[in-house]
């Protein structure tokens, strides 16, 4: 049996619920995929969790889900079959608990879709099945049907937070207390969102400019500013920042500098890995050391921004440890009445 794709079909939802797409999600079990880097940016998780609860949706996280392991696959520390097996273990846990899984991280989203894609290779599928059989033989504790099997036809569907939030944008807008007060916002999508589409027969989906974040900024009362490095990588580059820091930071530097050059008040993005790279003080210091420029432009994840605009408590949107002077100014600008 062929492995099915797990994308949530947004077009179908739009057709079925043209007036209010939120209706589709009511009564369904939603689960937030736990991205490791949310530890540094808890507002990324809380931002969407609180919103979904307020909208009356059933939302949870899966306690048995592990790291997506994409980083280890990209560094050749696990094989394709092992990566696919880790992925299927997570997918089966999520499938046991939820109807729809939401992703705050481009990397995790790409990993789960890719792990599933790999199973289309018969060789990888056979090896992954062997691995999972071994796991089953050695397992103990809670079990349920299908736990250690590759299930080709799953009802579980996956969606990136950005795509989900855009689909229900009217409801998001209705939940806001504040607006962006005309702030200039530079957009960063991140490579694994920009280059995600796997269907080359759909030219639109493949090559058309992605503009959901720009649309959001306008809807929020801000001003999206274009800049030269809009589509460039954040510099993380599957751990290039760890292995070739000086070269990779050049990419980060160019991105931040380009956004500062157009007087952006902050950079908005839909991925905590990009956020980590573009905001880490240690990297900013190194940029200053290597390229002689102290760049201060703040960076914010979409989920954090929505939490700020909704008037959530500080620790539910931007944690205090990130509260530098520029972020504080933005926070105050947005939240003053």
């Amino acid at each position: 049996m062929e492995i099915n794709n797990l994308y949530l079909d947004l077009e179908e939802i739009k057709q079925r619920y043209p007036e209010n797409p939120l209706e589709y999600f009511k009564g369904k079990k939603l689960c937030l995929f736990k991205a490791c880097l949310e530890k540094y940016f808890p507002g990324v998780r809380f931002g969407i969790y609180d919103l979904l609860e307020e909208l009356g949706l059933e939302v949870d996280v899966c306690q048995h889900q592990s790291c997506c392991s994409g980083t280890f696959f990209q560094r050749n520390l696990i094989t394709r079959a092992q990566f696919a097996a880790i992925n299927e273990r997570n997918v089966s846990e999520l499938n046991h608990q939820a109807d729809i899984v939401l992703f705050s991280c481009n990397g995790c989203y790409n990993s789960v879709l890719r792990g599933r894609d790999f199973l289309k290779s018969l060789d990888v599928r056979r090896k992954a099945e062997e691995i999972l059989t071994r796991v089953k033989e050695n397992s103990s504790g809670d079990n349920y049907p299908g736990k250690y099997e590759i299930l080709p036809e799953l009802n579980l569907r996956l969606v990136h937070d950005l795509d989900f939030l855009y689909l229900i944008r009217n409801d998001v807008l209705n939940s806001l207390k504040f607006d962006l007060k005309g702030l200039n916002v530079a957009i960063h999508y991140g490579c694994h969102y920009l280059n995600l589409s796997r269907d080359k027969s759909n030219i639109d989906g493949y090559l058309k400019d992605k503009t959901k974040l720009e649309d959001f900024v306008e809807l929020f009362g801000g001003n999206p500013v274009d800049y030269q490095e809009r589509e460039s990588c954040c510099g993380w580059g599957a751990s290039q920042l760890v292995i070739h820091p000086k070269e990779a930071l050049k990419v980060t530097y160019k991105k931040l500098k380009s956004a500062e050059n157009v007087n952006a008040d902050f950079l908005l993005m839909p991925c905590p890995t990009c956020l980590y790279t573009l905001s880490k003080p240690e990297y900013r210091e190194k940029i200053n050391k290597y390229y002689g420029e102290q760049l201060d432009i703040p960076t914010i994840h979409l989920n954090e921004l929505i939490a700020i605009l909704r008037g959530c408590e500080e620790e539910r949107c931007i944690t205090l440890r990130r509260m530098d002077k520029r972020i504080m100014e933005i926070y105050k600008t947005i939240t003053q009445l």
Partner: protein
Amino acid sequence: MNYDSPIGSKIKLINLCMYMEDNTESDEEWNYDFLNELVDDVEENRNLIQCISCGKCVGECPATKISDFNIRKIIRKILRGDKSVISNSDIWYCFLCERCKRVCPKEGINIPLLIINLRNESFKKGFGPKYNDLRKYVEMAGRFLTNGTVLEDPLDGSLSQERVDELNEICNFARIKYVFKASNASKDNKKKKKLKKKN
């Protein structure tokens, strides 16, 4: 571009040199032995034969902007049986951003997967990154195999031991296990050194 201007004529000359450099090999120099070895490991690499050397992948590549990484050249070498790409450090500069896959005009060419395959071969032959380059990964591998995430004190706590055991079983014989063992060995050495100092 006005090729009659001083700058234009220089660019014309550079273009001509690049064209000649790229077209000095005849069809007789195609050699698919290396490609076949790569296909044995990752069957999707079979599609590399469709490459038309258009260079779109290079033009959009972040790694090309900061290093000598040039995927067009790497593919040309592979299609001529040149295994030097494995020992060359260039392959370790790829960002795996998948931009090349997006802009490639061909249907089934998966360059990021090819790079992972080449790096695997490089590892096997002993050309991979040195232990120091992987230090961060040593720590991350340790955490993944003990609490299921790559960071200490994850937001939602660690996985239960039963689930961690499952991950360890899946990762049996993987490089991550050896890196994990190396991390334990290095911790033990540090402890021994501390003890020695104390005594």
